């Protein structure tokens, strides 16, 4: 008998379903290939559940609207690709600074500029971390399958609500447009995290109370008439020029992620225990890497794969452990070398690190990875 909960979905549709499962009730976006289906899907699904969808006048309008909606108490989402992701950076920085939960999906396409809109890419790894100006926290998740897009969308909302920070869900066009059967869990099967709301009297409320690791966040219109500004601010939310307070705040928004990175990290380790050759791969290319590992293991070549589902904060512990064991870490990615820089930094010379790069709009095939493994076997 067919499992009724199993559905054949496109990656972008799974993202929309994951958002709804997580309690998303507000989406603002702007059409852009290859992420448009997320908005299309939510334009139908959200109003049916009483949620709101709006197609804004541009990408910046969309990120702005979801931050506004979040402050009014919604769980909000926007989705974009390449050029739109560049435009959203000012809003992402604002959400980091003002500690407003929201989720930004970037379905990566070829760049720079308009680049190759219909082609896959993984070239926004560094932009997802460093895109907004100023030092700011980055929480970025990288699913590899349609099912994972569903779960990682839910996790994006959960992390965003828990840590009061924007979370970026980063996947490439291949997984975004791929169709796979997925299981949508029953309600209650997956934990849903909601932001902590204040319980104190309004006159005592401090929206940036630094006596909490994560201060409770009120919603506008609930009696807590608080102030939000992108300027450096005091615990009460009002601007400050005090150097001590500025430094304290700038460090606090970084530290709340840094100090909790073990809870935010999520990796899959495949055949790493006895591996002498390691692969570090994420997104659709982790699938090619997995295939290559299977082929090589059949030939008794000890290859293992580390597949991060959280790429930022960077999985330092897992990469460091791998670097202790293997003689080489191969980093295949659809860019000219981005995650590889971090792998090299963390490996710190303990093993060789070699990139496999491709920016022609075709994915990195297992055979390309196998060819490199052959050199090190």
């Amino acid at each position, binding site marked *: 008998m067919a499992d009724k909960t199993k559905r054949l979905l496109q990656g972008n549709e799974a993202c929309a379903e994951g958002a709804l499962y997580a309690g998303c009730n507000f989406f603002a976006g702007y059409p852009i290939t290859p992420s448009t289906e997320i908005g299309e899907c939510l334009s139908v699904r959200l109003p049916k559940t009483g949620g709101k969808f709006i197609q804004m006048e541009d990408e910046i309008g969309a990120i702005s609207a979801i931050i506004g909606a979040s402050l009014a*108490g919604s769980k909000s989402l926007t989705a974009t690709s390449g050029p739109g992701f560049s435009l959203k950076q000012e809003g992402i920085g604002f959400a980091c600074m003002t500690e407003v939960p929201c989720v930004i999906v970037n379905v990566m396409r070829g760049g720079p500029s308009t680049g190759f809109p219909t082609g896959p890419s993984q070239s926004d790894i560094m932009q997802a971390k460093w895109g907004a100006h100023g030092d700011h926290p980055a929480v970025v998740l990288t699913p590899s399958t349609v099912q994972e897009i569903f779960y990682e969308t839910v996790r994006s909302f959960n992390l965003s609500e828990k840590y009061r920070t924007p979370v970026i869900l980063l996947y490439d066009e291949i997984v975004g447009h791929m169709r796979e059967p997925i299981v949508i869990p029953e309600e209650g099967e997956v934990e849903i995290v909601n932001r902590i709301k204040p319980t104190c009297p309004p006159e005592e409320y401090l929206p940036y109370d630094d006596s909490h690791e994560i201060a409770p966040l009120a919603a506008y219109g609930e009696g807590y008439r608080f102030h939000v500004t992108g300027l450096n601010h005091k615990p009460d939310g009002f601007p400050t020029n005090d150097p001590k307070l500025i430094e304290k705040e700038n460090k606090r928004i970084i530290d709340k992620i840094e100090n909790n990175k073990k809870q935010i990290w999520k990796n899959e380790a495949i055949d790493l225990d006895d591996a002498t050759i390691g692969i570090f791969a994420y997104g659709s290319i982790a699938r090619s890497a997995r295939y290559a590992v299977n082929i090589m293991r059949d030939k008794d070549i000890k290859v293992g794969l580390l597949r991060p589902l959280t790429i930022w904060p960077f999985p330092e512990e897992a990469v460091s452990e791998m670097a202790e064991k293997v003689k080489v870490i191969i980093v295949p990615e659809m860019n000219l070398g981005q995650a590889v820089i971090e792998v090299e930094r963390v490996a710190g010379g303990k093993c060789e690190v070699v990139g496999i790069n491709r920016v022609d709009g075709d994915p990195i095939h297992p055979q390309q990875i196998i060819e490199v493994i052959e050199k090190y076997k």
Partner: protein
Amino acid sequence: MAVQTAAKKERAPFDYDRYLRPKKLPHIWCPGCGHGIVLKSLIRAIDASGLTKDQICMVSGIGCSSRTPGYVDFNTLHTLHGRSFAYATGVKLAKPELKVIVISGDGDALAIGGNHFIHTCRRNIDMTILVYSNFIYGMTGGQYSPTTPQGAIATTSRFGNIEPVFDCCDLAKAAGATFVARGTSYHCQDLEKTILEAIRHKGTSVVEIIDQCPTYYGRLNKLRSATEMMEKFEKNGTVSVKQVDKLPPEKVEGKLLRGILHRVERPEYCEEYDKLIQDAKGK
């Protein structure tokens, strides 16, 4: 503080403190800046509207005028340059029961935020937008803006501004705003009434407010004081829409109209969205 007479109180002065956050004054605006006058008109209008402080969400972008929300005891959101309208759209659509008031300036609304401004007007989403127009970028030190008169001096138009002026009210009307008005800080009592009408209007209401930047616009253009600027641009530079038909053409030539310039009824965005939800739920 000096009380000049011991006479008994006969009529209490307006209590602005009810709406101001404690210990925030003096505000950051320069001596003679009109923004404080406008803020007072706005507070009196809100008081007359009967709205509670919890019902109001005030959103602003970047610039001198955009510092307003920091002083008032509402739900307040000081956002990014030009983006206030989009943030406000998010707030309003997420929580339509809030009365959203956007505070913006000529550069914020008409230059960097122009796209958000016109599309907010087009949707006719229920919010009141105040555009404080003082013909200059004050916060950054006096660069020309979309409302700087042609020929005027700014730090980026030292040889006289060659760019034509954007008419904020014409733009708002053309974009679809259903209430469009203009006031001045000089006519602060009329302004209070105009803002009250704007707040009561259902849909996007835009009020352009001509006020003065003596520090930059005034100094650069040899206008010696705030008073001189208020006389020139506000008192003598505008004509009430109620009087315009009675005046000879030479007294109207080159002057901006003041008062409610456009008011129509058109479906409001959040209400239309609610209907859409009902339709979608049935499908």
